[in-house]
């Protein structure tokens, strides 16, 4: 709890530990009371708060000083802890009486203690000689102390600058106190020796006086003026305790060990017994303190008018952000104020103002930004917001809202009212909260559906704000609210759009709406970010409704591909989402190549899930820190906006298959062949590596099996692997017009299989009849004709079409497989020869110069014999290789001869 207080509110971090410390402080009190109950009555003196606290502090300080002299670090540690507690207790007094200036003697003691700690820490020999206990406590003390003094740094600095002056003042004070306490010191000392045994004896009874004690502490919690008796006892008692300990430590070790045990157990017992009581006393009452005077905000007979209500409102709101204010009560109080205002009919302006404040109070309620608000507040928020908007829309022209209006220039009484505030920011915040809420829900539960129902309300609110801003706001504000609307619109599919395309629907569709909103933003935005997001959403929406050309043109015109990596992550995510959808759209429209192009960047990384912000990858070896993960979590898309990843991958793989397989067949022996899709290749490879391939199960296996079938030109098997019941439920049914997509797919498979077949097997044909091919591939003759013609034109297929006989005549000008391989080999051997020649040259850098003049000869002298030998060897090797190449050519010729003979034989 304290951790986020420190960051969130401006109240100092010390106060955060207050609640714990109040608990702890009361513990020693109780113990001591049990022990010394006899003495109690004697010293009952009424003292002022300040006096009491200061005395307590000085006592502790003195005991620290004493312990310091004898270097009992364990005791110093516990005294120091007591000191911190006492000091926090004294703090309100200090603030009140001294106006927040920390008293000199406190600072001095801290400075002294620091010096002491530093000296002891530095003294390494001393540390070694220390008892184990002391050594340990020194470490903890040093750590605690360092942490603690952070708050005092500035004062300490001041003190160190002129310590003397402080000392004098302090000494006087000190003396006074010392006199006071010295007399006390003697008594408890004596008592402690005697009563040591009683401590143990009485221990079981501890629980009894507890009750009385907790009542007591309740008292001082609520009204602090009547300082209770136990409180009074505190300082001296604490002192006694420390004194006792030191004496014990000095006296006998075994006893100390014995004593320690009960001490350890005692507080624990009390902690168990006390917390609830104490909580109410020390912790719960604090808000009550604030609240107790609030509900009675107006005197019964007071005349309620705008000013009174306003001042009250300001009073309430001034508590905002403070640590002590109970945010829950504040909201309730504001509500009450609202009803009062309504009862007295104080005008729309005030009503609006109060509602604004309620909204912001609800937003404030949640302190952690990353966490969603509670459901009950959420619904309340929606309610108030709707109320507010209704009011605003009714008084559309009478109320002027602006952030530039200061509190002083607000106008409540006469029209037009002028108010400070911004509905747009409020609704934006509300929208963000909504998304957060959604993300918090388990997307597969009913909760999610329930929450999602609220979207209607949220969009309605946005709509209302839009109406309001359109009248009142600046273009920039309109852009902002439009973008909010777009954010809720762009990912939703509207079947009417497709109907309209077919002429079955007349009215406006979401595409038209998007068009209007986006065009306004294009025209009026000057922040670039809004425009980028609007364009991306616009493209997304077009792609969603199969407006492939509009979407593509927008992408190309926007030139976002070049600049997108410089934008913020959430825009990049939107870009990725847009690209994914564009790819899907291209696929549905049968633009396989474009689909592949769109998706390749997403799929190449093998982590599309992260790129689309649809979930985090499991962590690997602390790749990211906790904060990073938090930030990433905040970026995630809510579930209902997700793009189906399996669909995405399937579309990608299928389009890769349709491109890659014919390409592979066409360039089987091309040494410089480059693969189109690495991911697809990997899938294929990994399946080939398996020794036993079973029938396909997953989507990927289906695609791989289909690719293998396609390699042999078996279109039927291929299309069965791609379009079947399993794949339908997994993938294809997710499309809006699934049947059309499937039909298109089968058509593509047929065509590409035909191409693959021709590439792979053309070398065994002398000629193929077109009708036969069209029958084989279940394609119209014309289609086959056109495909083959295209291949011939592109010089992919060495053949010509013979029209009268309807056959494709192969030219056989392509090299056979063996020939192609031999050519590759020849290539490689030339490379090798080149490399060898390079070695050769390096050995003989001045081969030609050598004959001309003996330049540089001395340098080389020793190596030459060797060089020559080497050259000789290399020449020989090269010669052999050349021979081998010739041999290969010779083999090829032989090969051809053999083939012809074979054919003859057949």
């Amino acid at each position, binding site marked *: 709890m304290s951790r986020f207080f420190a960051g969130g509110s401006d109240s100092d971090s010390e106060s955060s530990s207050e609640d714990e410390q109040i608990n702890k402080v009361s513990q020693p009190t109780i113990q001591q009371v049990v022990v010394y109950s006899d003495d109690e009555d004697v010293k009952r003196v009424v003292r002022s708060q300040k006096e009491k606290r200061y005395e307590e502090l000085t006592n502790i300080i003195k005991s620290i000083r004493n312990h310091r002299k004898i270097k009992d670090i364990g005791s110093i540690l516990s005294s120091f802890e007591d000191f911190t507690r006492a000091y926090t207790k004294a703090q309100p007094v200090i603030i009140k009486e001294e106006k927040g200036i920390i008293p000199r003697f406190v600072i001095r003691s801290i400075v002294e203690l620091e010096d002491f700690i530093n000296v002891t820490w530095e003294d390494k020999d001393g540390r070694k000689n220390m008892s184990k206990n002391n050594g340990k406590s020194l470490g903890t003390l040093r750590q605690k102390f360092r942490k603690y003094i952070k708050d005092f740094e500035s004062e300490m600095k001041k003190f160190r600058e002129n310590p003397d002056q402080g000392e004098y003042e302090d000494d006087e004070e000190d003396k006074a106190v010392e006199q006071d306490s010295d007399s006390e010191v003697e008594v408890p000392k004596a008592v402690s020796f005697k009563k040591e045994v009683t401590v143990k004896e009485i221990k079981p009874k501890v629980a009894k006086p507890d009750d009385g004690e907790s009542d007591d502490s309740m008292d001082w919690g609520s009204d602090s003026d009547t300082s209770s008796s136990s409180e009074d006892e505190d300082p001296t008692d604490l002192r006694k305790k420390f004194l006792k300990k030191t004496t014990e430590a000095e006296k006998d070790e075994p006893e100390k060990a014995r004593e320690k045990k009960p001490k350890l157990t005692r507080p624990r017992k009390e902690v168990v017994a006390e917390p609830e009581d104490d909580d109410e006393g020390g912790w719960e009452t604090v808000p009550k303190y604030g609240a107790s005077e609030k509900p009675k905000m107006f005197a019964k007979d007071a005349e309620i008018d705008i000013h009174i209500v306003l001042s009250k409102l300001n009073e309430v709101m001034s508590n905002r952000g403070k640590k002590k204010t109970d945010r829950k009560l504040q909201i309730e109080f504001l509500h009450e104020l609202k009803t009062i205002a309504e009862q007295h009919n104080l005008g729309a302006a005030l009503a609006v103002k109060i509602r604004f404040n309620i909204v912001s109070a609800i937003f404030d309620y949640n302190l952690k930004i990353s966490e969603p608000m509670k459901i009950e507040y959420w619904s309340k928020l929606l309610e108030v917001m709707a109320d507010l908007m209704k009011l605003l829309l009714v008084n559309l022209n009478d109320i002027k809202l602006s952030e530039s209006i200061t509190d002083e220039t607000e106008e409540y009484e006469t029209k037009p009212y002028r108010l400070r505030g911004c509905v747009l920011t409020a609704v934006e915040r509300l929208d963000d909260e909504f998304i957060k809420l959604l993300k918090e829900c388990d997307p597969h539960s009913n909760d999610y559906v329930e929450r999602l129902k609220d979207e209607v309300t949220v969009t309605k609110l946005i709509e209302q704000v839009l109406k309001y801003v359109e009248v009142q706001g600046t273009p920039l504000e309109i852009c902002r609210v439009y973008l909010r609307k777009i954010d809720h619109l762009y990912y939703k599919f509207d079947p009417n759009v497709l109907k309209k395309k077919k002429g079955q629907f007349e009215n406006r569709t979401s595409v038209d709406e998007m068009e209007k909103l986006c065009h306004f933003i294009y025209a009026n935005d000057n922040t670039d970010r809004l425009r980028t997001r609007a364009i991306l959403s616009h493209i997304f929406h077009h792609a969603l409704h199969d407006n492939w050309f509009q979407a593509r043109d927008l992408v190309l015109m926007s030139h976002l591909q070049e600049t997108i990596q410089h934008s913020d992550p959430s825009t990049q995510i939107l870009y990725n989402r847009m690209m994914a959808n564009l790819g899907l759209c291209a696929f549905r429209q049968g633009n396989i190549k474009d689909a592949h192009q769109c998706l390749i960047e997403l799929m190449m990384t093998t982590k599309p899930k992260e790129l689309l912000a649809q979930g985090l990858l499991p962590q690997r070896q602390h790749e990211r820190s906790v904060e990073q993960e938090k930030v990433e979590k905040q970026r995630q898309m809510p579930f209902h906006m997700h793009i189906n990843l399996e669909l995405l991958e399937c579309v990608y793989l299928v389009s890769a298959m349709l491109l890659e397989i014919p390409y592979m067949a066409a360039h089987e022996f091309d040494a410089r062949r480059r693969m189109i899709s690495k991911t697809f290749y990997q899938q294929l490879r990994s399946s080939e590596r398996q020794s036993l391939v079973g029938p396909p199960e997953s989507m990927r296996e289906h695609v791989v099996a289909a690719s293998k079938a396609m390699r042999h030109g078996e279109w039927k098997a291929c299309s069965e692997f791609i379009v079947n019941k399993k794949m339908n439920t997994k993938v294809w049914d997710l499309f809006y017009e699934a049947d059309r997509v499937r039909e298109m797919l089968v058509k593509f498979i047929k065509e590409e299989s035909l191409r693959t077949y021709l590439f792979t097997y053309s070398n065994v044909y002398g000629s193929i009849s077109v009708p036969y091919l069209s029958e084989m591939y279940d394609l119209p003759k014309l289609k086959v004709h056109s495909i083959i013609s295209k291949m011939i034109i592109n010089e992919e297929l060495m053949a010509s079409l013979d029209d009268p006989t309807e056959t494709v005549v192969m030219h056989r000008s392509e090299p056979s497989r063996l020939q192609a391989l031999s050519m590759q080999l020849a290539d490689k051997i030339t490379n090798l020869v080149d490399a060898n020649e390079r070695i050769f040259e390096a050995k003989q850098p001045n081969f030609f110069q050598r004959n001309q003049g003996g330049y540089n000869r001395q340098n080389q002298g020793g190596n030459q014999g060797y060089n020559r030998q*080497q050259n000789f060897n290399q020449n020989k090797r090269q010669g052999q290789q050349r021979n081998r190449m010739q041999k290969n050519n010779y083999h090829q010729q032989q090969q051809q001869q053999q083939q012809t003979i074979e054919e003859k034989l057949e």
Partner: protein
Amino acid sequence: MNKKEITHVQCDGLAVMKMVKHCHEESQGSMEVAQGALLGLSEGNRLEITNCFPFPKSTDETVDEEEYQLAMMRRLRRVNVDHFHVGWYQSADVGNFLSHTLLESQYHYQTSIEESVVVVYDTQKSARGFLTLKAYRLTPQAITMYKEGEFTPDALRQLKIGYEKLFVEIPIHIRNSALSNIMMSELQEMVQEEEGSHFLDLGTAGVLEGHIRVMMDRVDELNQEANKFNKYQQMVMRQEQEKHRQLNKLTQENIARIAKGEPPLPEEDVTKQFRPLPVPLRLNPMIISGQINTVSQHINQFCSQSLAKLYLTEALQGAKETKETK
């Protein structure tokens, strides 16, 4: 020594059959290499291989190989088999047997047993109807090379060793007893006329493709080695230049110093700065060259054999046709 030089290997039919059986069983489908020990005796220039036994698979760790061999030999002696260890055999695919391990183990064999040979059996080629059984021995140069353990270009040059001089192939004669010869001829009678015609299957394209693919890989590797060497050369050159520059500078400085009357600086410091670069070892390229060599030989041989087969089939076909027309 010259007297004992092995000039040919005589192999018993039994040993051949055992080797063939083992190699086919072991290396079918898997990439593992079958290995075994050869037993026999040496007589003058002739090494006789009369029996053999396989080594256990290297993956099986429970068996101690040494012990297994000794035990095997002891038992074989009891049944009156020659127990003189004369070498070892190994299976291979299309002549890819040449490797570091083969060289090394043969080196160990030959240093411990003078006469030992390695017999390489090519499973793939034999499956196509060409019994390929070859015996190799390391040349004396190769042995000295291994002894010195230096594979720098200089060392190799001094030894005058190249890839073709690593091994000597020793001709193998297969000898059968008279009894088995008689049985063979009897069996020959029993074989039907059409039987065995599947050995006439040419399958040339596939084999040649395989060869060429292997060759391409090797050439690639050799190319890499050549590049490595080239890089080394360039580095040496650069170093030389740098050294030269430094030396020039030094001499100039020394001249200046002498002019001033100071003692000149020694040149050693400069030369010390430049450590000789590590020379790339030449063993690897040598082995690759050897592999390329064997593959090319195989192609060469295969082509002539294929041609012969071609004519054979043509003749057979012609005979068949005339038979049918009659």
